[in-house]
């Protein structure tokens, strides 16, 4: 009995390592065969549209509300210490450094990652990928890679839009509603947000998250078991693993950027 359990643990380990290996090979192929300019470029643009542009609504709406809530909460806490003029820096720093990249990536995993995984999984189940292979068209190059690069391009852009809209939402609540002085709001923000340490690092984070989320999504779709249950679980895994990877990577990246490493 105990032998059996040990074997199961071993099997589990081997299966997982094999998955990592396959994911690594897929990543290598996507990097090695980026879509070529003539045929691949339109495909990537199409994916930027379906992954990026179509995610805009959810990103804009949630960032507006997140910015508004942040201003509301921040104002009341800061006001207790008579520091409500620091609302601008509080909102800007928390959005640009953390909330922007992280929340965008999690929303992106839910909106675009799930769609990509389901689409690729369904293409596999309906033999579209196999027939492409038999037509001597490499599905990694034609289907998988454009989706990966589309996500790679979209994610930082979405995060920047998130940042801008969230800060504007905070401005609406803080300045227009709660009565913080607009000049103080903006000038304090300007003096305490650094371009390199805050903004560039936030964008770097969003690039890393974009790679992780789309890589996980295309891999889950590509290796989905070609049944309805298989595609359902691949879609779920794309979102769950994607979101967890974002949160885990966020800690690692933050630790590296703050300089403790």
């Amino acid at each position, binding site marked *: 009995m105990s032998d059996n359990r040990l074997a199961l643990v071993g099997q589990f380990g081997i299966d997982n390592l094999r998955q990592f290996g396959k994911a690594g090979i897929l990543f290598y192929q996507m990097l090695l065969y980026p879509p070529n300019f003539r*045929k691949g470029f339109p495909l990537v643009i199409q994916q930027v549209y379906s992954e990026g542009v179509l995610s805009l609504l959810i990103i804009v709406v949630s960032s507006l509300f997140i910015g508004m809530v942040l201003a509301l909460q921040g104002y009341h806490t800061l006001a207790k210490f008579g520091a409500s003029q620091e609302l601008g820096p509080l909102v800007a720093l928390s959005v640009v450094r953390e909330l922007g990249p992280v929340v965008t990536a999690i929303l992106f995993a839910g909106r675009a990652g799930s769609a990509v995984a389901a689409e690729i999984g369904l293409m596999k189940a*309906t*033999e*579209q990928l*196999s*027939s492409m*292979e*038999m*037509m*001597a*068209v*490499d599905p990694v190059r*034609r289907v998988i890679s454009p989706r990966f690069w589309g996500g790679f391009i979209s994610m930082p852009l979405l995060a920047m839009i998130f940042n801008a809209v969230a800060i504007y939402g905070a401005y609406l609540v803080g300045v227009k509603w709660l009565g913080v002085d607009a000049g103080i709001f903006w000038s304090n923000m300007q003096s305490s947000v650094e371009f390199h340490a805050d903004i560039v690092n936030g964008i770097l984070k969003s690039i890393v998250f974009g790679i992780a989320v789309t890589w996980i999504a295309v891999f889950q779709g590509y290796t989905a078991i070609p049944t309805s249950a298989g595609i359902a679980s691949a879609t779920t895994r794309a979102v769950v693993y994607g979101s967890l990877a974002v949160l885990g990577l966020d800690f690692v990246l933050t630790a590296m950027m703050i300089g403790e490493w």
Partner: protein
Amino acid sequence: MPKSDPKSDHLVEINNMSFQHENGKTVFHNVDIVIPRGKITAIMGPSGTGKTTLLRLIGGQLTPTDGRVKVAGQPIHALSHKKLYQLRKRMGMLFQQGGLFTHLNVYQNVAFPLLEHTQLSESMIHTLVLMKLQMVGLRGAMHLMPNELSGGMARRVALARAIALDPELIMYDEPFTGQDPISMGVLVKLVKTLNNSLNLTSIIVSHDVQETMQIADYVYVIVDKKVVGHGTPDSISRDSSSELQQFIQGLPDGPVPFDYPAMPLVNDFLQGGEQP
């Protein structure tokens, strides 16, 4: 496109090939098959004998665990990625579900391989696509989306797409399964006429004995991991081997047992109410 050695009259040669799935299930054991050039070869056998797997092995989508699969004189499983894709341009495959791209209409589906692999002008591609669609009788359906087609029509579109690049070899995976008598008749006729008029080599994988025997020049029957008989349709139907006769005549019990392997009935009953 370079033609293979014209002296060899076998387009596909499978020598001593064995194949095992990743989960350890053996599908083929020491199988030898040759596919003569220019003929229609049928590969028949009960469901689950790995007929589709065989086509995937010939197409280089799977690698045999032992033995060799040679297509046009080249060992397909040992080719580099580039050479494999070059060789695949000379093959067409018709999948059971058709495998049409659902985001493209009928015209775009057939034009897809031409756009991917040739530098032809738009009007040239238009002409070629219309010719291929005319061959399968669906020129009028070129603006329809795949979800607007019946099963038989989808297969005919997939067939037009498979012959778009004028391949030497075309593989049909269960082309007659689940078709009404009319579309079945249409497909049988198409397979035959395409093979003759385009000078193709066809491989049909099927378990529809009557229809397949009607058009095949040579038949292989695979039962339980190995080839149990091969020959012309006539000689196959006269063969006295019990394995062949069970399959050809559709007898419920025989060398292929009616019962899935199980422990004796008594033992199963004595196990009580345990759910498996």
